[in-house]
């Protein structure tokens, strides 16, 4: 099976995020970047599907040099080859615009199964997988919990619905799946994987190579400003050394909140 997984480099979860001087983006220098958490599960899901049914896994990322690092890591984890769309132009773009770039880069290859993380840790749209599916004319499923092949032309996929319900459906290929976190133990790159990652084939495209028009790339949503959220409510902060804090809290829980 021809399998694709899409990954994005994002600020690490513990990164100290500061707003840049233009007020509309973050200071990118001096923070660590990593593959977005859900996307690691997308890589794992892609590799597991290949291991169960055969074929190849290609990893795709859109971004500048930071994306190269993520691609290298995915190749070290076991992906066979990579597509890197080298651009910083869509870093702040809306989900549909990002999906257009991914879909265009993937279209000619006719991947049968495409895995994305359900949501990125930076812009958090929760939206790229279904939009890519539409643009590729594929089926999709979002918030995916499990995937198993049904013959050569379908997948049995479970996903989360509201109210803690889980729906299982059979969907025909091609399909784009947005993978939830926590569904597998994600593998680490082996030493052998790391050694061989550099020699695996990488296709590099610029936005011009993809032939996307300016109109297609014009952002539909513009981030005008970023700010630390205004506090509508703030907890009563309890201060002091740990023992003092603990005693003060227990006292307040008994006498003020009356919950102990």
């Amino acid at each position, binding site marked *: 099976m021809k399998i694709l997984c899409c990954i994005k480099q994002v600020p690490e979860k513990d990164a100290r995020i500061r707003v840049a001087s233009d007020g509309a983006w973050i200071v990118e220098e001096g923070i660590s970047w990593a593959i977005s958490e859900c996307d690691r599960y997308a890589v794992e899901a892609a590799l597991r599907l290949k291991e169960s049914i055969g074929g190849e896994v290609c990893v795709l990322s859109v971004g500048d040099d930071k994306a190269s690092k993520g691609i290298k890591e995915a190749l070290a984890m076991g992906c066979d080859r990579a597509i890197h769309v080298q651009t910083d132009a869509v870093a702040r773009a*809306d989900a549909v615009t990002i*999906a257009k770039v991914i879909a265009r880069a993937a279209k000619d290859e006719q991947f049968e199964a495409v895995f994305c993380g359900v949501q990125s840790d930076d812009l958090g749209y929760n939206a790229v997988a279904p939009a890519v599916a539409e643009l590729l004319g594929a089926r999709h499923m979002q918030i995916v919990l499990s995937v198993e092949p049904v013959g050569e032309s379908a997948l049995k996929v479970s996903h989360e619905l509201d109210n803690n319900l*889980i729906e299982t*459906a059979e969907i025909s290929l091609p399909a784009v799946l947005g993978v939830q976190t926590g569904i597998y133990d994600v593998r680490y790159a082996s030493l052998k994987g790391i050694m061989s990652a550099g020699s695996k084939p990488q296709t590099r495209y610029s936005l011009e190579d993809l032939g996307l028009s300016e109109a297609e790339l014009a952002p539909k949503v*513009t981030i005008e400003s*970023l700010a630390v959220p205004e506090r509508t409510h703030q907890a009563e902060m309890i201060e002091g050394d740990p023992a003092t804090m603990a005693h003060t809290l227990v006292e307040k829980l008994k006498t003020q909140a009356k919950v102990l």
Partner: protein
Amino acid sequence: MAKKILVVAEHRDGALKGITKEALTAALQVADDAAEVSAVILGQGVDALADELASWAPGGVVLFEGSEVEQYTPEVYVKVLGDFIKESGAELVLTGNSYQAIDYFPRLAAVLDAPLVPDCTAIESDGDKLVFVRKVMNGKLDARCTVNGEGPTLVSLQQGAFPPSGAPGGGAVEKKAVDAGGIEPRKILSIEPGETGEVDLSEAEIIVAGGRGVGDEEKFKLVFDLAEALGGAVGASRPPCDSGWVESFRQIGSSGQVVAPKLYIALGISGAIQHLVGMRGSQCIVAVNRDPNAPIFQEATYGLVGDLAEIVPALIEAVKESQEA
């Protein structure tokens, strides 16, 4: 602020979802004229829900009825709603950011080639433009966004962001047949409740929950120790369950259990919305976190900043002392 607004309703088990009423509330707030707020609902045998919806949508309700929409599938929803939105001339299309919306709304945006603003927490006006506020960078920042171009804008609203007002009354219901010509929906095999396990957290009066900030499986024992001292149950946010530190049935939030105990103690939980929606109803919330800017402190009654390894043992000690006193 906005002219024609369409709300896409959602229902399950014979009831309108709360987030649908929240979306209607948002629509009525941003509408220039309440008469321009209309709603659409898809289903079979949901006449009563359409009537209820009409009391919220002065501009009227369109009910798409048919066996094809008795059960949600993104294929049919996208086809029916895509055609209807084009025909309706709606400027703004609102819905609650449910898991169902996460599944089909982005695809609808791609079909319409429309701006999509997911999981919006506020809508403001700046002159003649609407400004949509949403969380980015894992909730650390608010992004204020505007949209460009002609045609409809699709916005999903974060659960709880627009507390429902009263229904203004007044709309009529128009029924339409579903035209899902040529669309073959997926084959749904089953819909079943997720794992709930032996612990029904919804009954617990005291819950001590741990998050990613607890550190690892071994350190998670501290969470159990404090729960034991308080006679409470142990819960968790998503990361500890994902990492296998605790059983997944302990998960509290949009993918897990929804709880409302008397006392909720959040240890090393930063406060992602997916967790907050599962515990916001608690009577008293205590948050302990290393990061003084963690969003959880905006939900909590009491906040303690510091290292769990120091604070939790001190808390256990203080609880025991107070019990002996």
